[in-house]
């Protein structure tokens, strides 16, 4: 396929020499590093200094993957992916050292400015190296990994919170990782999750001990720690009894990641009375104006409300990627547990989004709430696909779902595909769905009051997504709001 080939060519130009070199010194007799084989899996595991049990886990997933087929049920179209034509371990690319902000691509700089990200922060994100001895300001400290390790890690440690790359956790906390990894998304779960299990590069590990309320939003740290994570992220978050943590994923900066295929897995576990709030802002490269390039984002995110009275809440703002295939779900296993899904999915250009959630009610008196706002512009296709199901024993299960779609222009599509299964009579499920179009009359009304066309669209769209934006932590909400306006630029007129 052309698009993958293009990316592969580019990656080859950038860092393949280094990569091949590293590969060949370790497994000298092996064939080219491209493609997937047991050796690739072994190589990745070795790279991460993993214990034997982890390698075995990966290999089992790999063998399973060989027997699986790509899912075809989503409303997305793309040329067949050649899985042997992909590099599976792209070690964090060494950032080109930049001496000052002036050397950053003006276009990227402009986007950062629109997002309102302070220049110091941009420097950190873009890898500007400041001369030795220069006074570090507060923001620098946040984004400097060493500082983070010493200041924030100390505070987290005092609270007993474990927060580290999962590759480290595998070595340092094997008992916890063994206990929970793959228990929410099993290695056999689905094609992409199984692939991820075999070749995941890195991701985050969080463990919040019983009764602890994590003293900070786990966000800023993530930004720097994960900015170079490869295509296959693996995240595992555990909130032990009575614990609480809010986790913000994603880079709100315009990350022009050229990796074609992303297949992440995120697993959340809450024990009795625990709560996890997981927020995502995703704005990966959506492809160019002709629909060439862009990220294929095949993600498996699932939370398990394992304990009674526990709660998991997903909030996502999705504006990027050429293809989004993503269904952050909740298994409501514990009695009285609660799942929430708040989503804004925006598609423009030739983007294809097939996203939604699954709320699986197993315990008694479990409740869930789904608020999905899909916005389609340009020539994009935007599908909400959701499953709400209540097990026979899930008495008094409750769900409320509202799916609203907004169309901008007349060449895009919005689709809602809800699956609803109630297997006991005490279940109460509500589903509401609307599809509307930004009418010329509404735009003209705003413009007659002095707003530009783009300001008018931004205002109407932000009104449309308000219910979901309110779910985001404050600092994120402002950036997300700007991001929404940016991603819809040029969508009308």
């Amino acid at each position, binding site marked *: 396929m052309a698009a993958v080939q293009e990316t592969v060519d580019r990656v080859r130009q950038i860092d393949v020499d280094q990569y091949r070199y590293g590969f060949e010194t370790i497994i000298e007799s092996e064939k080219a590093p491209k493609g997937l084989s047991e050796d690739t899996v072994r190589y990745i595991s070795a790279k991460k200094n993993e214990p034997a049990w982890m390698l075995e886990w990966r290999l089992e997933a790999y063998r399973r993957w060989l027997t699986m087929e790509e899912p075809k049920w989503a409303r997305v179209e793309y040329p067949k992916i050649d899985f042997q034509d992909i590099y599976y371990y792209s070690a964090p690319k060494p950032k080109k050292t930049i001496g000052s902000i002036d050397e950053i691509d003006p276009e990227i700089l402009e986007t950062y400015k629109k997002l309102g990200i302070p220049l110091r922060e941009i420097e950190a994100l873009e890898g500007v190296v400041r001369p030795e001895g220069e006074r570090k300001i507060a923001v620098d400290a946040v984004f400097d990994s060493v500082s983070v390790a010493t200041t924030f890690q100390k505070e987290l440690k005092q609270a007993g919170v474990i927060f580290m790359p999962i590759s480290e956790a595998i070595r340092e906390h094997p008992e916890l990782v063994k206990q929970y990894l793959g228990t929410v998304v099993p290695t056999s779960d689905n094609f992409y999750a199984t692939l991820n299990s075999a070749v995941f590069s890195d991701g985050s590990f969080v463990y919040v001990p019983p009764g602890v309320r994590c003293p900070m939003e786990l966000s800023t740290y993530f930004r720097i720690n994960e900015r170079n994570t490869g295509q296959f992220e693996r995240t595992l978050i555990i909130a032990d009894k009575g614990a609480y943590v809010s986790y913000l994923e994603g880079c709100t900066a315009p990350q022009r990641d050229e990796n074609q295929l992303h297949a992440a897995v995120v697993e959340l576990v809450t024990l009795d009375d625990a709560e996890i709030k997981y927020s995502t802002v995703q704005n990966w490269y959506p492809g160019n104006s002709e629909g060439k390039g862009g990220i294929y984002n095949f993600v498996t995110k699932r939370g398990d409300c394992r304990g009674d009275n526990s709660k998991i809440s997903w909030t996502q703002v999705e504006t990027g990627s050429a293809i989004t295939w993503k269904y952050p779900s909740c298994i409501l296993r514990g009695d009285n547990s609660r799942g929430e899904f708040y989503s804004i999915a925006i598609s423009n250009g030739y983007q294809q989004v097939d996203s939604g959630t699954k709320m699986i009610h197993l315990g008694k008196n479990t409740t869930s709430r789904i608020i999905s706002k899909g916005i389609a512009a340009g020539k994009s296709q935007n599908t909400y696909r959701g499953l709400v199901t209540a097990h026979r024993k899930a008495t008094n299960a409750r769900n409320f779902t509202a799916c609203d779609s907004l169309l901008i222009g007349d060449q895009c599509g919005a689709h809602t595909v809800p699956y609803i299964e109630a297997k006991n009579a005490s279940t109460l499920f509500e589903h509401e769905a609307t599809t509307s179009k930004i009418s*010329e009359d*509404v735009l003209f009304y705003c*413009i007659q009051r002095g707003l530009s066309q783009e300001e008018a669209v931004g205002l109407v769209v932000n009104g449309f997504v308000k*219910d979901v934006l309110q779910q985001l932590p404050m600092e994120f909400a402002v950036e997300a709001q700007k991001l929404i306006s940016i991603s819809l630029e040029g969508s009308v007129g």
Partner: protein
Amino acid sequence: MTALLEVKDLQVRVDDREILHGLTMTVNGGEVHAIMGPNGSGKSTLSHVIAGKPGYEVTGGEILFKGEDLLEMEPDERAAKGVFLAFQYPVEIPGVTTMNFLRTAVNAQRKARGEDEYLVPDFLRKVREVAASLNIPMDMLKRGVNVGFSGGEKKRNEVLQMALFQPSLCILDEMDSGLDIDALRVAADGVNALRSPDRAMVVITHYQRLLNYIVPDVVHVMSQGRVVKSGGKELALELEATGYAQYEEVAA
């Protein structure tokens, strides 16, 4: 003295059909003009073309606003320069509070004119003052723009915007439609309070009734895309008695 609004021999098409066939009128500062006429005579088309609504093709003539070529300006530019259209059917914008909408609009206009944006406390003070004069409770401004508003509330919201923006040309498109007498009186009082020597109003209506509350200086009768007769306020009363039929013949 330059007229505030000069419409000269305006010809407008919609989808290959000519709606206005050479319309001419001049409105000076301080004047209130009423435009009356039967359905389909082109009254609303005129208001839309002045405000710059897309979908209309001007095939001839010109519109000057304070001596400038209005047709060359984008609709938001026209708004910033002081053209205000009070809509016959104001739209609803869910999720956007009226207060937020007002502030965004005022600041967009101020920015376009090179003025400083309003500081929040100043703006709130201003809105409170204007809202009180129109009997608009502050609660209404916390709701989505026109969402769940009654007909009267929607029209009052239009007048509120007019009072906030202080435009020099106000076009009121069928302000009386959907209003009962009490609501009409409140809205008309708001409009009357805005009459001033440097502001003109163009009041579009079917019925003479509205003109009892907003008394015009000049009345134009439109028929089939032209102004067929102009006169003083007594012309409106005369129309009420005789109807539009005679003018349709004139135009034909």
